[in-house]
């Protein structure tokens, strides 16, 4: 049983580390603010969720499990809220998404 839990923990932690790195590379390489927010969402949702679930498989105390799930709960609510606030604040200050040429022209004409 503990072998199975250890293997599950391995899989979840390594998958979480993979998604964290993918999100970091996307944050550096994506072309504009709104695509960078997508990359940050990958690291915050998939990376954080997988790593915290992987840690719950290792906890032998129910208090530790409850704390890990509480952290996961707060992150699940806080990250979409702050991403929404970044997008809204940027749009209010006239930062527009990067669009292909014809779409930009269409929006300007209409």
């Amino acid at each position: 049983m503990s072998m199975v839990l250890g293997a599950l923990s391995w899989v979840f932690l390594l998958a979480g580390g993979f998604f964290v790195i993918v999100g970091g590379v996307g944050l550096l390489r994506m072309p504009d603010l709104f695509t960078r927010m997508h990359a940050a969402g990958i690291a915050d949702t998939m990376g954080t969720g997988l790593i915290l679930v992987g840690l719950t498989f290792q906890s032998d105390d129910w208090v530790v499990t409850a704390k890990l799930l509480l952290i996961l709960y707060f992150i699940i609510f806080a990250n979409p809220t702050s991403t929404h606030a970044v997008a809204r604040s940027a749009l209010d200050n006239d930062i527009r998404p990067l669009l292909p040429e014809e779409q930009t022209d269409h929006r300007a004409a209409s």
Partner: protein
Amino acid sequence: MSVAGALAAGVVAILVTMTLALIRSFKGPTVYDRILAVNMVSSQTILMLALLGFLMGRPRFLDIALVYVLIAFTGMMAVLKFFGHDNLEPSDRGDDGGVR
């Protein structure tokens, strides 16, 4: 097959991502890119606190991580409101949940 290896791999992944986010926060053309990168660094810090607590056998670190989640969220909202409004006063529109 000890689990400490996976924990160390997670810590290394988080350090790499923090470095990339720091580079973005120095380069970022607008202030919102910098805010996004700093937010990412703080969420990686939370993960790192949890991982290091398990790696050192001191799960009390989770309390610090729990407090850090709430402080990071509140600080993020305050910074966004400051850059969106140029002040931290309550909004007079009342329909935007405090942050716009």
